[in-house]
């Protein structure tokens, strides 16, 4: 193989002058984590809301929920990224659009919003499934003891539903984290983008991508471990 291996490349200074290539990858990692966490907050809250809408008795609420899910699930993430980044500012009134485009870290905010809305549609489906798998008696019992619909969801249905869907929710969280890499197309300097820049500056393709791969595997492992710890902690005693 006609390739010059150099594993010490990580300790070479990067041309950005602010540190080594390893520092560059770590800064990418922190953007990846920041984007994943911020967008997850949106995805989790909005997704729960939409998921609940789809289980309410009101037809109108169900329809809104369904439309949201269909819209955000049926357009590729990359296209949604471009819509938020290139199209939305043009459709806003002139001064707003300009303000939005000149925000520092505009690609970070765009990525957070885009991933938040995209992942929300997936979280919504999990929440809906979670609520629907609960015995119907739970809802009825809530109503019977005089809880309002809001209280029934808040104190009975959602706490149980979240416990049921914790494993699929964990994998949605990981999907969301992996999807942050799509934001490199709008200039977000996350981990994959940094690995790519490192490859370009240093010409060490395999070392750069191997490092990124190992980091992603590590994150997955940590998240899965934490999630199963959480699962045992929040389990309702005697529910299994």
């Amino acid at each position, binding site marked *: 193989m*006609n390739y010059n291996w150099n594993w010490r490349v990580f300790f070479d200074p990067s*041309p950005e*002058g602010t540190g080594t290539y390893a520092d560059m990858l770590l800064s990418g990692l922190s953007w990846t984590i920041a984007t994943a966490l911020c967008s997850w907050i949106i995805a989790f809250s909005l997704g729960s809301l939409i998921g609940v809408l789809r289980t309410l008795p009101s037809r109108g609420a169900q329809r809104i929920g369904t439309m949201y899910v269909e819209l955000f699930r049926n357009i590729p993430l990359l296209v949604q990224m471009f819509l938020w980044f290139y199209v939305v500012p043009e459709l806003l009134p002139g001064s707003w*659009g300009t303000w939005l485009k000149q925000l520092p870290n505009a690609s970070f905010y765009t990525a957070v919003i885009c991933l938040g809305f995209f992942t929300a549609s997936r979280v919504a489906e999990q929440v809906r499934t979670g609520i629907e798998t609960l015995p119907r008696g739970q809802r009825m019992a809530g109503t019977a003891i005089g809880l309002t619909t809001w209280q029934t969801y808040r104190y009975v249905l959602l706490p149980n539903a979240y416990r049921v869907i914790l494993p699929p929710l964990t994998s949605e969280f990981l999907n969301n984290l992996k999807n942050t890499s799509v934001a490199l*197309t709008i*200039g977000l300097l996350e981990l994959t983008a940094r690995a790519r820049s490192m490859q*370009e500056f240093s*010409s060490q393709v395999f070392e750069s991508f191997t490092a990124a791969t190992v980091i992603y595997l590590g994150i997955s492992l940590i998240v899965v471990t934490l999630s199963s710890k959480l699962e045992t902690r929040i389990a309702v005693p005697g529910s299994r």
Partner: protein
Amino acid sequence: MHFGHHRSVALKATVVLASAMSFTLGAAGANAQELTGTLKKIKETGEITIGYRDASVPFSYLDGDQKPVGYAFEICKKIAEAVKTNLKLSKLEVRLNPVTSATRIPLIANGTVDLECGSTTNNVDRQKQVSFTNTHFLTATRYVAKKSAKLDAIEDLKGKTVVSTSGTTNIRQINEANTARNLGLTILPAKDHAEAFLMVETGRAAAFVMDDVLLASLAASSKEPGTYAISSEALSKPEPYGIMLRKDDAPFKAVVDEATAKLYKSPEGKALYDTWFTKPIPPRGINLSLPMSEPMIKAFASPSDSADPAAY
């Protein structure tokens, strides 16, 4: 002309098998030529793969029909002809593969592309992974911005968001300048020149840092050419562009060097240059009006593959 992008795996496998068989037969015949590396591969497969760019106007870019054209692309076609003659092939299929600034070097190294025809700066760092033939252009790093923004000197960029194409020497230079001069820039890497220019066009970035010749052609072919200005201050000396080929493949490089040297020294080379830099070019018939500079005339008169800007 049809190019084999959409070849099925099955067909590919047949080609591999066929070439493997012809190799075995050739070896059994014991009269095979002593070919190595890329030349051997081209001889066996009857194919040469040229890497082209999306938007390196006028070097290598897609015209109105989304077909690759350009100055460097034409040079590569001439090289392919020279290779065909050299190997005494009756037929040589030219396959095309799109490359970006980010993918071009790995794709040369991994054998996907044999010649990269575009606007690749020849420098010492890159020579660790690839090799370059004779210089076909010289250009310095500058930036383009909207005229209304009045960003003529590098100091004017302080605190702004600028874009450059990922994988280029230019993004490296702006990063270095950012640190050295404490400019506080946000530097966005774009996938290709068109995307980067778009960021300036749509107001996503204040300036696009790139080789001045590419900036001039991007601005000239934009919707409103009059609204853009290229900085007078440069971030680098004029640096050489070369066509890339695989490293440590002296016989192939010799053929390519000979072909390019012959072309550049002949009137045909000057004519080729004029076609792309002093005449209307596709798709919109703009004229870049960039007659050959003194150093360029010298570079053509005595072709060189040196990476050192001082050599020109």
